[in-house]
């Protein structure tokens, strides 16, 4: 299923209105520090009606403002739903384009531009698709993924379920691509890994087999496996088998997973700001990959029910940070 918003061919009037909006947005550009001809200019491209995207943008601006001493950046917000030509105009004179979200990433990748671009706040699988479809390696780009490195999820697993030795994972079509990474990360922490391959139509049987053989279930992002329709039964089955789930989002923890490590929009915003600053100073984009900033959520009711050690979010985050490489 293609989740990209469908765009209808724009009428002339509509294009004029959008251009006016683009100009208005440009006029409202946030200038972090003193602007000038030699100011470092950054365009944040994202769906400005999406609350999470706006949160990321605000966090970028706030972090840059905090870091601003002698060298500062001029930050412009650009609405990713504008027509391509309007977008091109809006980002024409910037030193760095930062896209926030998958849709903005797609839009900007499809535009044949040479401006260095940081693709942020998108899942690894969306980033892989972008690289395949639209990004020739000659163009300067990088990415800040929203997924978490598996070592980090497994480190959290070790803290939350210290007795566990048998790690179970349900892999779908998307997450299967991380199988090698998973095997390496599990081996490095001394876990015995059991993997069940599943599809959207067939999760129950594999899951029930899995929970009989494992001490903890590690959930990897995969919309065919973990979605609104399936999460309830997965959490119910694991809970009944008293197998805690280590998730990848705060939503999973609220629904009944034991804990999760994830990046909040604020984490992403702060990290984007750091990368902008590095680029400003060095002219180099950091390699594409996972972020260094993350948050941890725990469901204390679940910890208590499964008789796991009691932690608060902050306790766990501190422990994770101590463990971080």
């Amino acid at each position, binding site marked *: *299923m*293609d*989740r*990209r918003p469908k765009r209808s061919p724009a009428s002339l009037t509509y294009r004029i209105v959008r251009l006016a909006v683009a100009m208005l947005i440009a006029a409202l550009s946030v200038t972090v520090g003193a602007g000038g001809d030699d100011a470092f200019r950054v365009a944040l491209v994202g769906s400005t009606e999406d609350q*999470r995207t706006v949160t990321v943008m605000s966090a970028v601006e706030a972090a840059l403002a905090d870091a601003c001493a002698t060298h500062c950046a001029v930050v412009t917000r650009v609405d990713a739903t504008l027509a391509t030509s309007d977008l091109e105009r809006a980002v024409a004179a910037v030193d760095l384009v930062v896209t926030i*979200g*998958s*849709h903005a990433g797609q839009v900007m990748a499809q535009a044949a531009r040479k401006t260095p671009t940081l693709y942020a*706040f*998108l*899942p690894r*699988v*969306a980033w892989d698709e972008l690289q395949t479809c639209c990004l020739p390696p000659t163009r300067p780009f990088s990415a800040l993924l*929203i997924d978490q490195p598996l070592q980090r999820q497994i480190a959290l697993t070790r803290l939350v379920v210290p*007795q566990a030795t*048998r790690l179970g994972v349900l892999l*779908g079509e*998307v997450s299967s691509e991380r199988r090698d990474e998973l095997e390496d990360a599990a081996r490095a922490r001394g876990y015995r890994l059991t993997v069940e391959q599943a*599809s*959207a*139509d*067939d999760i*129950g*049987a*594999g899951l*029930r*087999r899995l929970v*009989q053989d494992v001490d903890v279930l590690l959930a990897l*992002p*995969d*919309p*065919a496996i*973990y*979605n*609104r*329709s399936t*999460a*309830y*039964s997965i*959490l*119910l*089955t694991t*809970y*009944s*088998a008293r197998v805690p789930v280590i998730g990848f*989002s*705060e*939503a*999973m923890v*609220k*629904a*009944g997973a034991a804990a999760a490590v*994830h990046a909040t929009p604020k984490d992403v915003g702060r990290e984007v700001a750091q990368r902008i600053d590095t680029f400003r100073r060095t002219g180099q984009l950091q390699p594409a990959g996972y972020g260094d900033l993350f948050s941890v959520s725990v*469901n*204390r*009711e679940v910890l*208590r*029910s*499964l*008789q796991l050690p009691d932690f608060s979010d902050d306790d766990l985050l501190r422990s994770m940070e101590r463990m971080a490489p």
Partner: protein
Amino acid sequence: MNNKILPPFRLALLCIAAAIGLPTPSAADDAAFAMTEADFFTPLPTVLSATRLVQPLTDAPVAMTVIDREMIDASSAVNVADLLRLVPGFQVTYTEGIDAVTTYQGYADHFPRRMQVLVDGRSAYNPGINGMVWSALPLTLSDIERIEVVRGANAAAYGSNAFLGTINIVTRSPESVDHVTARGMAGSEHAREAELNLAERFGPLALSATAAYAGNDGFPHKYDGNASRMFTLRSAYHPTSLDTVTFNAGVRETDFDSESFRVPRKREYRAHYQQLVWEHVIGDKHDIRIQAFHNAFKSPDNVTFTDPGSGLLLNVDYSLETHRYDLEIQHRWSPADDWRISWGGGLRNDTVRGAGVFDSDQDLHRDLARLFANIEWHLRQDVTLNAGIMAEHYSDTGRFYSPRLALNWQPADHHTLRVSAARAYRMPTFLETHGELKVDVLLTPTAPDAIELLGTADNGAERIHSYEIGYLVDVPAINGVIDLRLFHNEVTRLLYEMEDEGLPGDPFRFDEAGSIRTNGIEVQAHVRPTPNSLLHLAYAYAKAEGGYITKIDANGNPAPSRSGNPRSVDPSVPEHTLTLLGSTKLGDGWQLSGTVYYVSPMEWLGEGDFVDSQSRVDSKLSKRIRHETGDIELSLNVQNLFNDPYWEFTSTDIDDNVSGNLAERRVYAQVKVSLR
């Protein structure tokens, strides 16, 4: 994407769903991997019942036995009641091939009536007899996710009748079963069972339907063959991530041959229920559960027979029809990290109809209104206080307050000490309050009709004070939990039937008859020495004292009786009850289990009689064959492996004829096929 051919049943279910406009799983969903950052933030349905209701054993104010799916599969049980043998102190027997009788700490007749039984929170015991008619319960073993058995009074949480214990059955969610499961079983005494379960998910709605048939010839040389048909539907709907609506319904029809009350005849049970539950999460700290249900039970049983002594043609109408309507609201709240509060209220109406049993054409009603509150307070990291109270108002018996207080202390890691005290009541049954069971003399107009059983309407409720000290130790080295429980129960205002010479025909009349004090110890060990093996030990020692009046003379004084008067309760409580279950997975899908049962001699009350000690060894071998499209499981289950016959239940009639249920070796072969 999965392109396998759909099994015909599932295809039919999908066609029906499509016809009524439900969203069906499609290839488009399968290929839904155009993943975006939204997949990390989309709210997911909260698993409320699982995460917020279950209290870890270390915090629980009661001793509990959890029979999970793994134990169910490993056990040799062939029906729900059989599983309760895995609980320390439980006795399970069969008064007839179909009628399983379950009691805790003995002291029971045909209809043990001192236990609460809940199925997914629905009180399932029969209000006519206040006991559980297992053979009328629309539920198969495959439907069960787990059973939590609370040992000890717990009316503060579950209401009166949670007197000696509470059996809390949790069924499998429609979202966690295979798409198609078919099961066939054949065995001794012409046992035959067939079951088909279909499950499907339609977006936010999940459905599971089970149709089952079971029958057998009962005990050898006994007229107790039976056959049962049932259908159950379970559904779960998540309209939003914070709401879950479940609707469950079931119907069961059981036909059986019966010799109970000394007259061979054809009998039947007809039962059905409907249950609707809405659970709603309000933020991180609150949730609400609202439940409405209706249970119905009907057992026509009009008997005409010739009395062997007098030669008179007699008629007794034992027919009974009962309905229970119940509405309950519960609010759970966590005002601080250290506090959890659960409180709410409910309304219930029990209606009973039995022209012959109550000598009345009118329906009898009992209304109940109740309020309850339970608080869990973590005083310190290592100390948990549980306090609860249930206030109930019955339209006929008045107001009752059932409190409970428990303190759990963890002096060291893996060790928990629990001290608790509780009071609970057992409401008298309609038979005990309004019974007027007449024996009509036919064809001989001069002979007067006789009243056989009489309920005394002003009976109060039985009362129990229950005290216990528990010690729970978790032994990580053997992956085990060991649970010790020392208890002292005092039951007063004991209601029992006494022969009343003051009334014409000397009928048996229910009245306050005595008291019981029971002391005992229970040991439960649940150990997984290796990931592939399981050991479960359930042992109970109980010693009872006290007695009850069995006969009174015309002046209301105890009269001489051949069973002793007052009759001691001690023989009715078995001294030792032991079950040991061991199971191991041998690899390549093979699993071997063995179970040993032992129950000391005990005397069943009412129609029952003295039964010598029971010991039995069961064994079960199963093989699971895994295939891409599904699993096949074959199993061979042998009960009483060494064919050492014992008496399940015996009764002696007024002419001193003894009839019993002899349990010999029974073998069952089963095949189960599940398709994904």
